[in-house]
């Protein structure tokens, strides 16, 4: 137990103190005795980390083991960090107020590249050295997992080990392995033999670590309870995971490649899981989570079953990701309550050619038909997501985003002549080429080029359509890290030492400091972000075998150049390489 009297003292000086106290309903009880202490760390605020489904799965999975106590740790807000420093107190876990330094393991969940300075922030507050070489045998073992680790090199001087892929497949085995001798060095040597584990101090440059994934989602561990935060998390609701992976194969999308194959749960499994979660949490909203829920084969039956079960209890069912098609609209209308009149879609590009380049597989006619139906059914808040800076993009393609927005805006009056005024907004992201996608070979636009394209949009989109865009200076640094290599470890440390933290929050991000950090290491952002790789070149992330073959990625990149589309996995197998190793993908599900 930490110094609870002093903790009470500092909690009086911070905003929303219940984020730091733990004790929420369904928090796990810590076991007595000499168990392994595992800190599950999320390098962002409590509200963000507590919304992450992966954290919930691992937390309850590890605490279900007889020999492991798993506690949570999040990045404190500025006021709390200041109080900790002022009182010379370390960052502590939520369950037993223990310093992170006193854990056997700290497992960081890396969900976006720009979280790394916040990782260092948490280490600094815990008095743990940043570089693994500077840490001793008594320091915790630093683990990293999450989608960022599909290219682990930019972080391999910081973490002791990486779990590539879905950690629930291997964490219990690793815990038992550690329990057998409880020696850091010996453990790292043995763990390097385990599939899906990358250990920089053991594996050489020629390593090839294979990604792990759950083979049977119906049998995979899923918690029957979630911790219920006192203060509102970003997603404060029950969630069931209907499938992993996405059948679509959009060429820019990393998740669509690195979570292959599509693995769906049976409808009855999901119904049971939803019912248990609602009963154990008291939430009145259940979200059907996945990369593309309306593609889940049992979607309609599941939605109907859950709706019939929960409507009378005022518990709503929520579809977080909708495609712009008739089927999605039908489900959205079924679930429409008086509360929800807003819809969000992602056409991604304005021109048909560009949507074919990225393999979005949606036509303008489909977009217009779906929106027209949405307008007619009373929806008057529409948000659309687009990207600029995609490979093969021309200025005409960028301007086509404004053309499409105007067309949608003016179609509203016809579709809903008596409707309330339409609130149409568009969010424009700067494309970041990601490893293990067909676009991994392509250079990213420079910040200036992004800004010029944003200008084109700002000048052509009418003021009544709300246009927002991602910060290009942030996107190019994300781009540098996404396809970077081990030289970037020092850049992160340098940026942190200059005061960078919470970089994914635009109010904290400081492009100037990041530029200096690259320069101090004798590097530039553009040499990483704007690099073009040859189709046969060795890539920094080739040490990871994601399961999708190089031949497939090259074929897809070439098809993009010809604006040719590829059918989705459910329609026709495009031989991406997954089935070569693990046998033919099976997509059938049961009710």
């Amino acid at each position, binding site marked *: 137990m930490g110094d609870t009297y002093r903790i009470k003292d500092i*909690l009086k000086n911070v905003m929303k103190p219940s984020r730091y106290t733990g*004790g929420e309903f369904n928090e796990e009880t810590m076991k007595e005795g000499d168990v392994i202490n595992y800190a599950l760390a999320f390098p962002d605020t409590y509200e963000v980390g507590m919304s992450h489904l992966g954290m919930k799965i691992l937390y309850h999975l590890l605490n279900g083991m007889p020999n492991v106590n798993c506690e949570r740790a999040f990045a404190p807000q500025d006021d709390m960090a200041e109080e900790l420093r002022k009182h010379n107190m370390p960052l502590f876990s939520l369950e037993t107020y223990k310093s992170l330094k006193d854990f056997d393991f700290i497992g960081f969940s890396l969900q976006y590249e720009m979280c790394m300075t916040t990782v260092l922030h948490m280490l600094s507050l815990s008095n743990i050295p940043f570089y693994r070489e500077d840490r001793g045998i008594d320091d915790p073992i630093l683990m990293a997992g999450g989608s960022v680790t599909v290219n682990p090199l930019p972080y391999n001087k910081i973490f002791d080990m990486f779990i590539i892929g879905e950690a629930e497949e291997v964490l219990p085995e690793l815990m038992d392995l550690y329990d057998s001798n409880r020696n850091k060095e010996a453990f790292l040597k043995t763990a390097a033999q385990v599939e899906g584990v990358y250990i920089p101090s053991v594996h050489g440059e020629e390593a090839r670590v294979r990604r792990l994934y759950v083979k049977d989602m119906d049998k995979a561990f899923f918690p029957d309870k979630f911790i219920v935060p*006192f203060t509102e998390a970003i997603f404060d609701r029950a969630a069931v995971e209907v499938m992993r992976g996405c059948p679509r194969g959009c060429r820019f999308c990393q998740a669509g490649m690195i979570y292959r194959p599509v693995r769906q749960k049976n409808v009855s499994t999901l119904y049971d899981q939803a019912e248990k979660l609602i009963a154990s949490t008291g939430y009145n909203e259940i979200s059907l989570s996945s990369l593309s829920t309306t593609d889940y084969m049992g979607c309609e039956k599941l939605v109907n079953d859950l709706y019939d079960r929960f409507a009378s209890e005022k518990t709503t069912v929520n579809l977080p990701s909708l495609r712009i098609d008739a089927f999605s609209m039908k489900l959205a209308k079924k679930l429409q309550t008086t509360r929800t009149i807003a819809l969000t879609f992602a056409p991604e590009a304005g021109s048909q050619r560009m949507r074919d380049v990225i393999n979005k597989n949606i036509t303008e006619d489909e977009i217009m038909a779906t929106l027209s139906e949405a307008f007619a059914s009373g929806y008057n808040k529409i948000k659309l997501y687009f990207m600029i800076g995609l490979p093969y993009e021309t200025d005409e393609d960028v301007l086509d985003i404004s053309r499409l927005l105007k067309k949608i805006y003016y179609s509203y009056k016809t579709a809903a002549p008596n409707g309330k005024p339409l609130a149409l907004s568009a969010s424009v992201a700067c494309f970041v080429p990601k490893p293990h996608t067909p676009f991994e070979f392509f250079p990213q636009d420079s910040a200036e080029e992004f800004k010029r394209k944003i200008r084109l949009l700002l000048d052509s989109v009418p003021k009544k359509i709300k246009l927002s865009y991602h910060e290009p200076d942030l996107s190019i640094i994300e781009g540098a890290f996404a396809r970077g290599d081990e030289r970037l470890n020092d850049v992160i440390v340098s940026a942190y030492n200059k005061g960078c933290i919470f970089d994914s929050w635009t109010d904290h991000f400081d492009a100037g400091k990041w530029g200096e950090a690259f320069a101090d290491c004798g590097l530039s952002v553009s040499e990483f972000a704007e690099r073009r790789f040859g189709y046969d070149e060795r890539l920094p992330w080739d040490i990871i075998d994601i399961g999708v073959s190089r031949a497939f990625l090259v074929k897809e990149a070439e098809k993009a150049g010809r604006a040719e589309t590829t059918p989705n996995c459910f329609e026709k197998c495009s031989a991406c390489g997954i089935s070569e190793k693990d046998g033919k993908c099976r997509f059938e599900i049961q009710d």
Partner: protein
Amino acid sequence: MRYRINYRKIASAIYISHLDIQRAFQRAFHRAKLPLEYTMGYNPHEKMSYSPPLPLFVSSDDEYLDLDLAGDEPAKEIYDRLSPQMPKGLILNGVTKLLPTEKPLSKTFKWADYEFTLEVDDPAGAALETKGYYEDPEKPLATTKRTKTNKEALVDIRPLTCEFDARESDGRLIISSFLNMSNESLLNPLTFLKALQENIPALKESETVKIHKIKAYR
């Protein structure tokens, strides 16, 4: 049927804001599968009402909440179902059925018995000085507070308090007092403490260790 829930807010629950307490109760009601009644309208919500909100960092042994339920079940049954569903630090004292003639919570309680634990250099001396100061009606005991319209207003705490006492215990200064809890002239315990600390010389440098509400009186 309307039920009155009496609960304690202690330990780490003192860091939970009033709004978050409301949500915590709503979730507990759902988990307990109570037959909730909902308000009509666009945004249906559970029919419930609270005693005046307790400020953050203040603990209490005597908080109240009224809840409407469909049907008429014994209060003990409601207590047994709800009790295991409460988060740490929010502990049920009891559940009672309300007669239709019962006044709403906002009009039920007149006084709240509070205890303040402070750290001062000389607790025994400070206790004497504090008591003497309070009992001398000539000495000022007013402070400013923020009103609902976010303006500053001057409030004299003497007419809003009674049963005042100050004593030394375990090397600390304990101040106890009844504070007005009626809707019209509710005295916030933090305002009370501020008035003492601003006006009484011996309390100027005091550090607040604990504020605790012992009981609410009709």
